[in-house]
């Protein structure tokens, strides 16, 4: 694990800091219109948004294999997502569980193609090029100071996927070509 550029405010963040336990919400699926809407910029201090942050973490936690969940996926067109790529084999830099509001990509380099799936598009996967070195800014829920997240590998891919959700984009909007969408292969 690379620890050189961990943001300690993010890495040490815990859902306990929200002061509430979230509810598990229903995850909406495409073609639900909320998934195609540009999410609104939010006030991270707004108690409604702090509750939403707790709900995103709770919903992510109960969803098998889920490493990230954005507000539009629970039906709220807002720029907020929860993430936790801990333990994934492709993870290098890892900030553990965190929720970020109003996240914006500052720098994205070294794009690589990989196949990804999404809880909101459960029956398809697609090849998507994403930066493997990424810097984003955002605000932790319940705070007002901007934090800068610099990450790589799988965490970078997951963050870009979630930021896309916040602006109404699905991986379907970014596939690498006409032949780059596949039926999901679930073999258990």
């Amino acid at each position: 694990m690379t620890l050189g550029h961990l943001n300690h405010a993010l890495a040490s963040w815990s859902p306990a800091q929200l002061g509430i336990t979230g509810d598990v919400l229903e995850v909406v699926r495409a073609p639900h219109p909320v998934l195609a809407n540009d999410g609104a910029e939010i006030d991270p201090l707004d108690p409604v948004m702090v509750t939403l942050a707790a709900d995103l973490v709770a919903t992510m936690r109960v969803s098998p294999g889920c490493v990230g969940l954005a507000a539009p996926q629970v039906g709220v067109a807002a720029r907020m997502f929860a993430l936790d790529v801990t333990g994934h084999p492709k993870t290098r830099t890892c900030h553990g569980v965190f929720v970020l509001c109003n996240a914006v990509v500052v720098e994205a380099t070294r794009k690589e193609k990989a196949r990804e799936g999404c809880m909101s598009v459960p029956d398809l996967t697609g090849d998507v090029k994403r930066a493997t070195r990424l810097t984003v800014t955002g605000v932790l829920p319940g705070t007002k100071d901007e934090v800068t997240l610099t990450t790589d590998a799988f965490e970078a891919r997951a963050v870009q996927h979630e930021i896309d959700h916040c602006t109404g984009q699905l991986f379907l909007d970014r596939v690498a070509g006409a032949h780059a969408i596949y039926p999901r292969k679930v073999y258990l």
Partner: protein
Amino acid sequence: MSQLAVTVIGPDRPGIIADVTEALAQAGVNLEDSTMTLLRGHFAMMIVCSGSLPEVKEAVEPLRGELVITVRQMGPEHAHAPIGPPYILSVHGADRPGIVSAITRMIASVGGTITDLTTRLSGQLYVLTAEVELPPTAALGMLQRALEITAEELGVGVTLRPAESDDL
């Protein structure tokens, strides 16, 4: 309404898809799965759709001539259940007859199934890319070795790698 298979092939020109799908839409057809691609200079469409066989046949009639069109009624749809984990098979090398048959025979011989396959001939270079499912009983090491031996005999290179996807 029944499930129909519509195939179209003809010399490429702008507007083939628009013409064919417009005719189908006017016949009340709902397009389901399809693949449409340029195969050398020919544009080829394979469409599974739902609609009325006689109405669709009539609707595409004016397009026949430059385009070779078939419309057939399909049997009941069977959902494809994966037989095992997915892999991507890549083969490339100098063109010669028999590459596809020899390579796909190796996959079939271990009970594997191919869910998608594309080949392209570019000058002397022949390229095959396939999505493959292999049953868990398939001995992967043995298959890899058998593919390499077959590829060597054909004078091409082969790779078989997991088609893993990450849920985000």
